[in-house]
């Protein structure tokens, strides 16, 4: 094993070791030294309450911005501010694996009704060759949408190309290369092309491309930025089970919060970027699962740290992942969250490259590495500390601890502190109602009430679908049990 691989392997174990170390240490302390453990828990609880209040304030700010920019005529803004907008082309790639026409058709319909010239849109449906339905589905969609855009281009990613894993990034890269051939054949300048890589179930807001074009054209270094919309899961949110809905709304809110923390903001899920940059950085990684965030880090490294993510306060709507039984839905959600948490692979990827890079300022490298590590470790341990370890000193500390002042005060202080979180929870509940689409016909009005009450299951959700999959992902990467890309099955219930 060469030194590069050694370093990478060493970095892979760091998040898991820290997360497990924190958990094990606190459990041992709760038995051997419950007073010290209680002090740590109080410090953490207080920190978490301050943090959640701060982040909820950012969420409100992001929501206000989203609300202000809702229904804005972005194309008009483009026309007024930047006369050169007509030179822009949008390359839209939908990596598809097993998604059926019921999922794919609405995504294309959403593009078709966009408030943006369709003759400036090139749509690539990137199928996997190994899916036996690919050719048939491609033919059906091509017949339906070939005249709707400048070009409707189905691509078929061959299975088992050298150096590739079965990942979404490999498929997207293949599709982007095919699209590049098309651009060259039409003589379209790559610098004028914005590439958007969308999950197969992504339905864009009708103003999305106007908004994207505006931000691309008005930013100082448009090729040195990714453009991140707010992902919402409105396609089937009224039909989804309670806890799946909570998880996805929580995910949207986290993304809105992140959009306010520009120094940490990284691309996630469906997003857009300069096609020129995409080519320059050699496309998406073909052997990593978290391609949506790795693409940002590749660009960040390519531009020596002078790369950023510009938030777009406009939504792209996707499907809540759920199945026909509760257990299957929990498993499906768990796997999806574990795949998201597999983004921890970014840490060894980024830090190993930082170590070889002398161009990016040292403190920037330290700060970004720390952010990356801290976010994943926090993801894996916070709910466990709050919900599992929190009561341990009282439960395991015995009579001696319960007769200590801190033993008596610990439940009271944590109880009091968590009462403050009711305010933040209330804010989240109110905002969750406002980002919902209108209740579809056929859905009972009682569900509106249920959607408020279901926030009561948040502790269960954050433990089962928050920390646990993240800890699972970190443990797997720590033990070198690498994951294969496992796309989330999407289901839409007709009502």
């Amino acid at each position: 094993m060469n030194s590069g691989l050694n370093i990478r392997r060493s970095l892979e174990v760091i998040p898991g070791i820290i997360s497990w170390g924190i958990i094990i240490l606190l459990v041992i302390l709760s038995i051997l030294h419950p007073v010290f453990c209680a002090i740590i828990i109080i410090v953490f609880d207080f920190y978490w309450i301050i943090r959640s209040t701060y982040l909820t304030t950012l969420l409100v700010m992001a929501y206000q911005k989203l609300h202000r920019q809702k229904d804005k005529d972005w194309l008009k803004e483009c026309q007024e501010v930047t006369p050169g907008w007509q030179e822009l082309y949008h390359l839209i790639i939908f990596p598809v694996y097993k998604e059926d026409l019921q999922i794919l058709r609405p995504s294309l319909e959403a593009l078709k009704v966009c408030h943006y010239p369709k003759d400036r849109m090139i749509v690539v449906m990137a199928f996997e060759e190994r899916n036996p339905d690919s050719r048939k589905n491609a033919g059906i969609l091509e017949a339906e949408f070939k005249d709707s855009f400048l070009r409707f281009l189905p691509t078929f990613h061959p299975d088992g190309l050298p150096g590739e894993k079965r990942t979404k990034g490999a498929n997207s890269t293949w599709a982007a290369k095919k699209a590049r051939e098309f651009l060259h054949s039409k003589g379209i300048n790559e610098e004028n092309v914005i590439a958007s890589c969308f999950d197969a179930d992504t339905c864009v807001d009708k103003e999305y491309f106007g908004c994207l074009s505006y931000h691309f054209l008005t930013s100082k270094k448009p090729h040195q930025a990714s453009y991140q919309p707010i992902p919402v899961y409105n396609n089937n949110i009224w039909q989804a089970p309670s806890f799946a809905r909570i998880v996805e709304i929580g995910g949207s809110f986290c993304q809105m919060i992140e959009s306010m923390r520009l120094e940490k903001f990284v691309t996630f899920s469906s997003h857009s970027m300069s096609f020129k940059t995409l080519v320059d950085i050699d496309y998406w990684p073909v052997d990593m699962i978290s391609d949506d965030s790795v693409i940002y880090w590749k660009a960040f490294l390519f531009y020596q740290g002078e790369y950023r993510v510009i938030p777009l306060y406009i939504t792209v709507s996707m499907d809540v992942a759920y199945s026909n039984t509760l257990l299957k839905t929990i498993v499906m959600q768990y796997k999806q969250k574990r795949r998201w948490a597999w983004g921890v692979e970014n840490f060894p990827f980024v830090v190993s490259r930082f170590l070889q890079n002398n161009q990016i300022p040292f403190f920037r490298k330290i700060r970004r590495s720390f952010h990356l590590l801290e976010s994943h470790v926090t993801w894996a341990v916070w709910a466990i500390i709050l919900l599992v370890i929190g009561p341990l000193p009282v439960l395991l500390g015995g009579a001696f601890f319960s007769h200590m002042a801190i033993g008596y005060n610990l439940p009271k202080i944590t109880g009091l502190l968590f009462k403050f979180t009711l305010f933040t929870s209330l804010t989240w509940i109110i905002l969750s109602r406002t980002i919902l689409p209108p209740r579809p016909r056929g859905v009972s009005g009682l569900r509106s009430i249920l959607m408020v009450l279901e926030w009561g299951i948040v502790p269960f959700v954050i433990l089962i679908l928050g920390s646990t999959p993240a800890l699972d992902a970190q443990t797997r990467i720590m033990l070198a049990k690498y994951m294969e890309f496992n796309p989330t099955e999407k289901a839409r219930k007709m009502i």
Partner: protein
Amino acid sequence: MYNEQRIRGILFYLSVSIFLIGLPAILSFALGYKFNPATFKFTKTGLLVIRTHPEAADIFLNYKLLNEKTPATIRELLPGDYNLSLFLDRHYPWSGKVRIEAGRVALMEKTILFPLRPNIKQLNKDKISSFWVDQKESKIYYFNRENNAIYRSNLEGEDFEEIGILPQDFSLSKKWKISKDGENLVGFNPRQVILVYLKMRGRFADTQPLIILEHSDYPIIDIFWHSDNYHLILITDRSIEILEARPQAKILNIVNLNKKNIAAFYDDSNDTLYFNDVQKAADGKWYDNVYKLELSTKSFPFQELIKPKSNE
């Protein structure tokens, strides 16, 4: 965007400031530290937790009335011994010493303040000599020796009613035993068994609420209910007998005893009778033994044994 980032920066540093200022205060509170502004030092104190029954008692600590009433947690007490007194109107006061240790909690959680005038009331509405409580059915049964009357009321003495009169010549044993289902009561004297059907239903629906079964053979020493709530096991000074709890029931003698006034214990969960008796051994001498008699329908054809004989 610039303005938002400025606001975010302000919020961030405000949050950090609240954390840094608030954390020492919360931790010192949790650990029981008290800040003394005079000396500008933290002193480790203890807590006193007081709970009383009933609540709302006045608290005097070192003869000084506190603002709190029980239940209360008195914080920031310097280590040492304290005189604690608890006063509640119309209750006996409580007082004692409590020791407060630094960083620890003194718990006074089991203090009962007893009322000055005990909460006592008479339940019987007529003369009675003895009583028996059926906890399961929440009833009290009373017996008046003067007129041999049996009464019944609920646990509050309400619904007091006479449920039967025993014959004047019937002298009731103090031993009353209720069947396992709580529906029948049996009492006895050496020559009679009295059955009181507390619930007139099932197989007792057509019978009198109170019946007396004469037993003229040998004096009865003890009676037990079988777990089927229908059979009675009678211990006399000569035998062990089975009696059905119904009018005109015949007696079945299943064991003859050699000893008078034996000791007996009946395990009604397993329907097993334990008793002692004497037995003549091969050497011609009499020896005391303890016997176990199984009367369970599971282990012994109990019903089959009794019914044909009782119907003879």
